[in-house]
């Protein structure tokens, strides 16, 4: 409804210069339309059929996908089944606001499974030769694995709480933290809203949460028009197995957003781990109403504060080591050109504070990318071409380019075909090693019925060593 737009803008922008008295009435058909609708309002607007399955008061919505995948080279092959389920439930409480204990009881479940249906070689199997299709599913002893990404129940507007939630959930506080636990957020009181959360961090590929802990609190405040600031404190304890070091951290996070006007917005945040600063960043973004230009400028400084941190706030540190301190500047621009064409591009520059820190997983780099697209060049079409260059100062480079055509065929079928080429200049030993990888793909998505889709996908890939064929056939159902 965006009710506020007209009145807020109108009242905010009372001009210095007087305007003709009839200026406000020039807007619109809207005025007339709105006035005409006064008498009609007893009737709800356009007919509304909420999506989902209705079981009494309970509304279920979500989507379910099931896919079969066949991959082969000239020597090996692999077949898998995998699927995904997202299920949302909403059960509104009867009664008017103020008289009922809460407004609705909701739940959410998200999970997936993977089943290797042939030639499964799991953890512990002797592996004397390279198996190109081995992946994380082969690190278990069973051919069937399942993952739960989300499973929680929540109450909306529970007395003075805007939200009270329990179960597996994810919270974003500069980092996305998956945890099993609880979370409550108050309604805005004066200008402040408070939030408390805590539980056990959930590691999808680690069997035991023993010894782990997570808990914190945050506050948001809408202090001034357009300005929202917030702060969080949370504690993470990450007890590692197999001899890896444990971590025990107190994290402090400050953040703010200022919407200067309809086109400009500034975000800033800073975080500290224990007493050491970790990441500071400022992001200015611009969305031109008149030109359609969208631009983002980001400046960040990362301080590699510790050799070991919890896996929640410093993923990959155990594989790749801590990030060396760096500065990074990012500029991203996107511009529509008429109704048909569009172009985008960007630059990402990272500079290590100390160049002597440059090593395999810590580089100063420059990333340039360009993309151009055309929509409805002919009916139902969308074309995209994209190029990307990663140029590191002391090591590996990646150059890639791709082209894609997306075509709607009738009301039922959407076809997507494309190719991409990537050149990896790997500086591991000689500095001259090059790996080429070319991909051709075709995807057909059939909208068989409302909310039901059949998806077929074929990939042909050829790299510097061998070639691969991949076929994926699946169905997807929304409800």
């Amino acid at each position: 409804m965006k009710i506020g737009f007209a009145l807020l803008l109108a009242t905010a922008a009372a001009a210095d210069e007087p305007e003709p008295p009839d200026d406000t009435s020039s807007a619109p058909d809207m005025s007339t339309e709105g006035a005409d609708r006064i008498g009609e309002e007893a009737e709800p607007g356009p007919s509304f059929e909420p999506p989902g399955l209705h079981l009494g008061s309970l509304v279920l919505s979500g989507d379910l996908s099931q896919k079969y995948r066949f991959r082969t080279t000239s020597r090996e092959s692999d077949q898998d089944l995998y699927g995904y389920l997202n299920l949302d439930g909403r059960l509104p409480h009867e009664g008017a606001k103020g008289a009922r204990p809460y407004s609705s009881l909701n739940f959410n479940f998200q999970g997936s499974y993977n089943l290797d249906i042939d030639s499964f070689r799991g953890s512990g199997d002797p592996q004397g030769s390279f198996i190109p299709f081995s992946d994380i599913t082969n690190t278990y002893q069973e051919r069937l694995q399942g993952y739960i990404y989300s499973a929680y129940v929540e109450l909306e507007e529970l007395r003075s709480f805007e939200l009270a939630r329990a179960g597996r959930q994810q919270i974003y506080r500069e980092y996305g933290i998956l945890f099993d636990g609880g979370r409550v957020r108050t309604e805005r009181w004066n200008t402040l809203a408070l939030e408390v959360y805590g539980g056990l961090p959930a590691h999808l590929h680690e069997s035991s949460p023993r010894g782990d802990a997570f808990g914190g609190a945050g506050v948001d405040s809408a202090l001034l028009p357009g300005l929202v600031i917030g702060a969080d404190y949370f504690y993470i304890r990450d007890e590692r197995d197999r001899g890896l070091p444990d971590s025990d951290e107190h994290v402090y996070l400050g953040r703010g957003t200022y919407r200067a006007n309809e086109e400009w917005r500034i975000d800033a945040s800073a975080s500290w781990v224990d007493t050491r600063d970790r990441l500071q960043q400022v992001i200015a973004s611009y969305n031109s109403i008149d030109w359609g230009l969208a631009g983002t400028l980001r400046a960040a400084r990362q301080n590699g504060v510790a050799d070991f941190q919890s896996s929640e706030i410093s993923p990959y540190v155990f594989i790749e080591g801590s990030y060396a301190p760096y500065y990074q500047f990012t500029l991203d621009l996107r511009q529509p050109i008429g109704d048909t064409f569009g172009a985008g591009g960007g630059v990402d520059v990272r500079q290590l504070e100390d160049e002597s820190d440059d090593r395999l997983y810590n580089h100063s780099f420059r990333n340039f990318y360009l993309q151009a697209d055309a929509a409805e060049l002919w009916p139902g079409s969308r074309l995209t071409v994209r190029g990307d260059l990663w140029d590191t100062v002391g090591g590996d480079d990646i150059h890639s380019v791709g082209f894609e055509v997306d075509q709607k065929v009738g009301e039922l079928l959407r076809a997507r075909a494309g190719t991409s080429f990537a050149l990896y200049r790997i500086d591991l030993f000689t500095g001259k090693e090059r790996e080429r990888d070319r991909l051709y793909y075709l995807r057909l998505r059939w909208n068989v019925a409302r909310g039901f889709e059949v998806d077929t996908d074929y990939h042909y890939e050829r790299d510097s060593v061998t070639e691969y064929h991949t076929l994926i056939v699946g169905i997807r159902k929304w409800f």
Partner: protein
Amino acid sequence: MVLKVKTGLVLAVAAAVGFFLLLAGCELFGPRSGSRGFSHASHTAKGISCGACHQQHDTAAEAGMPSYRTCLACHGPAADREPYEFEKEIQAHPGEASFAAAPRYDDLRFSHAVHSAKAVPCESCHGELDRKSLIGYQPPAHAARCESCHRENNVSADCSTCHLETRRELPPPSHQMAAWDRNHGRDPAHAWDVMHERNCSLCHSRGFCDDCHRVEKPLNHTEFFAQRGHGIAAGIQREPCQACHQENFCIRCHREEQPRSHFSAAWGGTTSNHCLSCHELAQSSCSVCHKSTPSHFQATPIPPPPHPAGTANCYTCHLRPPHADNRVTPCVSCHRG
């Protein structure tokens, strides 16, 4: 890349950044037209109702902007005092002139009169007016608030109730921009919305992110990428990996699965220090990848004494050990006496 080319590119980037900042500075800190000095808070504090100034709020779609004559009712010439500076400005305007209405959001289908007839308080949408000065831009009432209120009152909450064009099944303009698929994670608005579970959830189900970010792989995740490319990509910039992968995803796979390069004929020579090529052993250990190292149990024992006089340092004789060595782990942890 030739140094001159790099220098040119850096200068080009710097110029672009400078232009962007200049544009931003002009926009953010330049002079503004508008309601200099006007405060809703000070007016509502005096008990002045919204309708006293916005007199069409119950009869038209637009609430109506007041004329200066409205202001003069309170801020006109007074016999008992000198006018304040802002009152002088008001009095200098023709009384019939109205304050200008700001441009209206094109895609909005909204009537103040309809909501007034339903006795919807102004604060429901405009927030705590008694705390707002409204100097400058105010963000609109968030659609989620509208949707919530409509649902509670059994009014249609479908997009078309309030929008002329926006529909759940039609991606908004931002999504049609070049590189949206690639860049939506970088969009600060996206980051904010994810953090507060706001705009995205208006159209996307709660599982929409996970469906792509955990189950469907991006196109650049080819078989080659799975075998070699990902290490190179992560070596350059690892943050994008975090959108989908937890850290223990890497460890679990690396501990069990050997990279393709490890199967080449040239791999694993005793002097290649191959572990150090990828893994910073000073910060982790061999066990990150090698869950067991049976051959190490048969490591050559340290030679019996006497050792060279005055030292127990193996490097005195073994200048370069014939295997990966992080110079941290004591030699005796494998080479026992």
